């Protein structure tokens, strides 16, 4: 069986390579690790280990920051792929909350200042 791989859309000329190419590792692993008939063999490897491995491979991106700049952040939205997806909103919420509490503190301080000023001027008037 000859395996072909070509990239479409390179108009006007399509690139079609007839020569046998070795499959892209990502294509291969997603088929061979995750798929196929699962039979319990005599030697048992915890399949969870394998799944962890594939997830780790998918996330093992030194270039995560760069990918994120380009808007590639799908893994962050998928709770099954990223613990960050579950925690994602926490930092933002914390930041928002700290701003909110600063505003509230400002308001209270102003009120207190006004009350003190009023009390001070009341004292002056009384004297």
């Amino acid at each position, binding site marked *: 069986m000859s395996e072909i791989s070509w990239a479409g859309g390179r108009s006007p000329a399509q690139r079609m390579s007839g020569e046998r190419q070795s499959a*892209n*590792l990502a294509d291969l692993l*997603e088929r061979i690790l995750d798929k196929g008939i699962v039979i319990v063999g005599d030697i*048992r490897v915890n399949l969870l280990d394998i799944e962890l491995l594939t997830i780790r491979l998918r996330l093992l991106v030194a270039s995560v920051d760069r990918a994120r700049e380009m*808007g*590639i952040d799908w893994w962050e939205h998928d709770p099954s792929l990223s613990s960050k997806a579950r925690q994602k909103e926490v930092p933002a919420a914390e930041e928002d909350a700290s701003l909110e509490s600063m505003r509230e503190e400002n308001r209270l301080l102003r009120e207190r200042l006004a009350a003190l000023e009023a009390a001070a001027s009341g004292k002056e008037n009384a004297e």
Partner: protein
Amino acid sequence: MTTPATTPATGPATGPAGAVYLYGVARDLTPGTLPALSGVGGAPVRTLTAGRLTALVSTVPLAEYGEAALRENLEDLAWLEETARAHHDVVARAAAAAPTAPVRIATLYRDDARVTALLGSEAAAFAAVLDRITGRSEWGVKAYLRKEPVTTRDPGGGPAPDAGPPTGPPPAGQGTAYLRRRQDERRRTDEAARRRSQRAADLHAELADHAVASRHHPPQDPRLSGRTQTQILNVAYLLDDDQAEGFLAVTRAIGDRVPELELEVTGPWPPYSFIDTAEAARA
């Protein structure tokens, strides 16, 4: 580590230091049609036949494929790649000769007799899988967005183009502006994501019309795929053999029609993605 039984195996003995690695199960494989193949770790591939079913196997050393060794080796990307390629090569060659159901990587038995027994006890389950894939192949389609559609920056200027999302604490006294900027960023990201998924859905709908079945795979890690463009679609399609030509024509037509999409088509694959593991056989 599992202690291998000392019962004599039919065919080549595996001995206490060996195990039998199973690649897949073919149906009606004419003897002699497979060339001499080397499989995982360079081990020769043998066939074990029971009725219409033929198991493709190799004898492998327990030192490498025992439980503990296997767990360690599967975490080694170089070992994994070599093993995966060898596994795939055997399955693909068998699939070219006869309908073949791939078995998950690293499925191991004590000896040949165990595999032969499996072919008998799970004959019905294998038949069901093989019925579904006979005369069919899997093709993979990945779609990349060549360029992100230009998103307009907010008129307020915003951060420098390469600044990315703000990370440090917000500058004091600019709380409202900061919050608005964050909100805008989120909105732009959401909008871009919405457009991407709509594109992916349209593309998939068109392709699925020309296939028997489809299965979505998660987008690939850029480092594994070697591609940095945004991958908006990664789907395996199961095609009848006579559908393949038309399907490929459709992918080419899409490439011409939608220049900002780059489609990468791979195949034919053995139908890895269409083996329903819900019917997994149990030994």
